[in-house]
């Protein structure tokens, strides 16, 4: 598998936490569900991109990360 550079790993962790806090993302802890997790996370990224009017790609691009790092309210953006 491609080695994920350190920074990207941190960004991925940050994004996961963000999507858990504000978009109801729940990660399957069981390692066997890794690909399912990635798809589920991609769906949640799409949901967040759509909410903020970003280009909906499902990918953790720079713009999406920048939006996640903006100071904000702690209440989720979608029902949970």
């Amino acid at each position, binding site marked *: 598998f491609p080695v994920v550079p350190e920074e990207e790993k941190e960004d991925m962790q940050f994004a996961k936490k963000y999507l858990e806090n504000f978009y109801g993302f729940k990660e399957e802890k069981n390692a066997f569900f890794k690909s399912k997790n990635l798809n589920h996370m991609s769906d949640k990224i799409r949901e967040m991109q759509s909410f903020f009017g970003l280009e909906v790609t499902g990918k953790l691009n720079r713009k999406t990360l920048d939006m996640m790092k903006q*100071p904000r309210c702690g*209440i989720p953006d979608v029902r949970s």
Partner: protein
Amino acid sequence: YSTFPQSPRWWKDDVTYRILNYTPDMLQADVEEAIAKAFQLWSSVTPLRFTRLYSGQADIMISFASGFHGDFYPFDGPGGTLAHAYPPNTGIGGDAHFDEDENWTKFTTYSGYNLFLVAAHELGHSLGLGHSNVFGALMYPIYMARDTRDYRLPQDDIDGIQALYGPPRESLELPTKAFPPQEPTERTPAEAPTEMLPREEPTEVTPSKAPRRPDDCDPHLTFDAITTLRGETLFFKGSYVWRKSPYFSEIEHDTISSFWPSLAAGFDAAYEVDKKDRVLFFKDDQYWAVSGYSIEPGFPRPIRNLGFSTSVGKIDAAVHDQNTKKTYFFVGNKYWSFNENTQSMERGYPRKIATDFQGIGHKVDAAFQKNGLFYFFHGSNQYEIDIKNKKLIRIMKSNSWFNC
């Protein structure tokens, strides 16, 4: 806008709040003022009244804390999450928590967060509002530094809170005058809601319903102002914007506050000077200049700066001729010609509209130029004019641009 699941709300008009502690970043009096002002924002557009308690259990308990602070949502240090609040309910319901690891300020600075703005947002949650995805709305999840001196609640937020609580009681009796200013945390003077409501009597308002956007193909649809903007055409009425783009077939529906959060609704006129990438908006005796989303500094300015006499209290419509670089201003049955190059009114004006524009024998509500032709709007009719020959080409319905 959005609400929480099952739309929880306070089932009473009188809601209490208590400030449990203070941030050391600000004077206590400034914290109290910021909180009171934030409550006023919501009480001015609903029947709600907020009373401050100094002991015991209040509906909305306000506190500053950092990290873990007794609920399941610890704060995260400087930046990131600034605050959170709970929807209406007993116990922790309604409470608002502010992250003490942030730098709280009374004014809008780049070294801290404006407590009034964040509190107004969080109290929106305490009253039952969720987040809005309208850029510029107060309930938009991301903090946006802005001028709060004369802050007006954006229309999307008014729509949301009035969907839960309805408009202020007074507005149901359609007062003949604004009631006198009262003590903080009571209802505030009524200038805010009238500013935000569409200029004419909203066609759809009933006591329990907030005003709503008229239908695109309503045959009686009229406009306050119309302008082009970077190839698109924006139609304004009250706080609503219809956006027609050459790139999309659909008409986009927006609100003024979603483009320019600090501009009040109800423009009188608007026009674009394409060569300067500048649009000017007129309301009463003032005007603003914007470039895209940003309002140019130093505005609003008085319209007499353009050369109007003080007897002109407001203008009805304006349109810029991209070919001649002249801008026509319409007031009553007269019009002026303004030279954008010299930035001065032309001599020999005002002139009668009917003299120079055959077929236009009345007030002009709105006007814009498209493909070299002028379009004048009066009531629900639109007049297409060949400006070079000052000839009336045809008369259409005002909303002919909306694919009806």
